[in-house]
């Protein structure tokens, strides 16, 4: 049965400008290098704006889904196995690498390399404990699930849910800078994974996905922007993301609009979007994005 819906002309456009201006408001505050910020007064100023920014912790799962559609084989060489969790000293390092390893965990789980993920889980536990969020990982259950492939769905759920909870908790406790770092880490590793696979396995779908990251990168930059003045580590990361944004500058994403098609099937509503986005990215632009993504990612997986 086809259902026609009244499409309401809502004008709730995403407004990011408030987030940008909040950076300026932060400039007068002095922050320590560690994560014990004196109640993030500046951060609270931009909380509403920050809520308008997407926090996709699950993006590597979606990338892994594309890789599986492409029949790309699993490659352990893509993993950030260089990271030594016990050698991360600052909250910055721990949170960023928690994100990077979270992306790797998603990649491993999607490829059902659950046995391999046990070592990774131990590193994740150390990093999470290091920023006092270890309570959100039920490591014993995760390990148990990792040993049994039939529990893959549960493992994926529990892993992603743990990261989602950490993100919520850190924001609620005024430690949004660590949450932003974790999400940035997830994205950096997912971006590295996608661009590295593209080098070996050219594919239009994945190529477009890399091009579309121009949109997500802009969100990410705004998410991290309020913290760029927290210290050298943060300002370097902000510069790295800006450098990557420069590589995306000439990538064009165009849109055509259409009305969504809706139908009811087995009691569920099925909606197919007829809007289309189109990515225009030259080989040279892709090459520059790939090189910079790799450089940035490799810098942050080193143990200093």
């Amino acid at each position: 049965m086809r259902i026609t819906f009244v499409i309401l002309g809502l004008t709730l456009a995403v407004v990011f400008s408030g987030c940008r201006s909040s950076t300026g408001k932060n400039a007068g505050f002095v922050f320590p290098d560690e994560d014990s910020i004196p109640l993030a007064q500046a951060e609270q100023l931009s909380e509403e704006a920050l809520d308008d920014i997407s926090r996709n912790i699950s993006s590597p799962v979606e990338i892994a889904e594309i890789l599986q559609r492409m029949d790309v084989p699993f490659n352990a060489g893509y993993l950030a196995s260089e990271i030594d969790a016990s050698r991360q000293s600052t909250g910055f390092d721990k949170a960023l690498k928690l994100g990077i390893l979270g992306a790797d965990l998603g990649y491993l789980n999607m490829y059902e390399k659950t046995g391999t993920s046990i070592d990774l889980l131990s590193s994740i536990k150390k990093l999470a404990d290091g920023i006092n969020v270890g309570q959100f990982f039920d490591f014993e259950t995760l390990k148990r699930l990792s040993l049994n492939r039939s529990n893959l769905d549960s493992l994926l759920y529990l892993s992603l849910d743990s990261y989602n909870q950490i993100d919520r908790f850190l924001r609620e406790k005024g430690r949004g800078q660590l949450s932003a770092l974790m999400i940035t880490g997830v994205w950096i590793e997912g971006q590295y994974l996608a661009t590295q696979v593209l080098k070996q396995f050219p594919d239009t779908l994945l190529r477009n996905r890399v091009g579309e990251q121009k949109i997500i990168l802009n969100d990410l930059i705004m998410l991290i922007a309020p913290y760029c003045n927290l210290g050298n580590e943060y300002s370097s990361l902000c510069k790295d993301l800006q450098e990557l944004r420069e590589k995306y500058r000439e990538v064009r994403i165009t849109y055509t609009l259409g009305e969504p098609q809706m139908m009811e099937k087995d009691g569920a509503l099925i909606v197919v979007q007829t809007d289309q986005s189109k990515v225009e990215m030259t080989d040279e632009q892709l090459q520059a994005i790939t090189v910079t993504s790799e450089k940035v990612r490799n810098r942050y997986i080193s143990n200093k």
Partner: protein
Amino acid sequence: MNKLALILLVISLPLGAGGQSGDPLVSKCVMSAGSNVTYLKDFRVQLGKASAQSDFRFKQVFALSKNMKYRFTLCNASESGGELIMKLIDDTGRTVLQSFDPKSGKTFSSVEFTCNKTGTYKILFDFKDFQQGLGVGVVSLVK
């Protein structure tokens, strides 16, 4: 979703241990999302009765990607006064989908969305007729 495995998992989790993993409503909702999906995110929505009918009160932002199929699953706690409903709005402010038909009043607890435009979307939740309620919205990736 392997329901038996997930039920066992939920039972084995300490309730309220540092977060919502032990939230039975979230777990129930994840389980009801179907067998061919991968969980991505859940939104726990708790609202009082609205004094005046306005726009949806619970808002989150989520990036959705072209060529991906997502499923939104909506669940209510038994004590909810109204059913959880949702809208999805794109970055131009257009409503892409809503889980209810404003003409007939019919609501859907499962909405499958084929995304053809990568971007940042707003997911808005409220309870039907702006009643008080407790519910969970789960976003999953359809395999």
